[in-house]
């Protein structure tokens, strides 16, 4: 972790808990259950991200699989899971990344900006000039959710 943005997993956890209690689990019945082992083995094929620029450079990525995205969308949109379409999943995951990324930004030094969200399916986005600096993984209703904060490498490997 860089000393520029000493974000801890606990900080990510707190943000995610607020999102879950506000929109996905208001009754407190289905929280995100943290996973500590074999995170690389968690299969995700939907990735929503925002980029952060300014005094800190990097990305916040929210990744899950399609069933998780459908459950998320159904909760957000007050729909049945089988009514959820691709556009719904894209919209909801984008908003999730926006909320998580925006709250991450609030823990960074002043003078940062958050981009509009991007959502991709299939392969995870690659950030050749960045490295993961903080990650929270868990399962929700049996499906994987992984939130990763990537920090861009500047000259000499320091924060850009």
């Amino acid at each position, binding site marked *: 972790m860089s000393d520029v943005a000493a974000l801890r997993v606990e900080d990510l956890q707190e943000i995610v808990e607020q999102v879950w*209690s506000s929109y996905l689990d*208001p009754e407190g019945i289905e929280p995100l259950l943290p996973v500590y082992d074999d995170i690389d083995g968690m299969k995700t094929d939907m990735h929503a991200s925002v980029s952060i620029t300014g005094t800190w450079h990097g990305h916040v990525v929210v990744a899950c699989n399609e069933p998780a995205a459908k459950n998320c969308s159904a909760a957000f*949109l007050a729909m049945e899971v089988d009514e959820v379409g691709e556009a719904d999943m894209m919209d909801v995951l984008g908003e999730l990344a926006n*909320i998580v990324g*925006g709250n991450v930004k*609030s823990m960074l030094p002043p003078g940062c900006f*958050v981009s*509009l969200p991007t959502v991709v399916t299939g392969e995870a986005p690659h950030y050749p000039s960045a490295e993961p600096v903080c990650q929270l993984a868990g399962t929700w209703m049996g499906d994987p959710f992984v939130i990763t904060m990537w920090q861009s490498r500047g000259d000499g490997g320091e924060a850009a």
Partner: protein
Amino acid sequence: MQAILIDDSRAMRLILRRIVGQIGFDAVEAEDGQAAIDLLNSMEKAPELALIDWNMPNMNGLEFVTAVRKEPKYREMTLVMVTTESEQSQIVRALAAGAHEYVIKPFTAGAMIEKLALLGLVPQGASS
């Protein structure tokens, strides 16, 4: 009573629609600041309330607030920023531009209604 919900996320607009519906508001929606300006210009009467995201394409929430504050016909419209922008300097900017209140995402329905009650926009008994 009417509210205009301005957010590029359809999911967020739906959440806001459900909340303001609970306290008796009809809602119209716009996906960015420019679309909201266009919609307001087509309406006979300005809504009592605008809930405004900050981070949107075409025209962001701060630009929208600045634009509507220049128009006397929208003077009565209560402007509430609903955004992840929680940096103090950004909140100050929004309030200085003319926003009345500020709600940070994520928010619960209760927190939003409480904020609207502070603004005098919740009829007695509407939230129960």
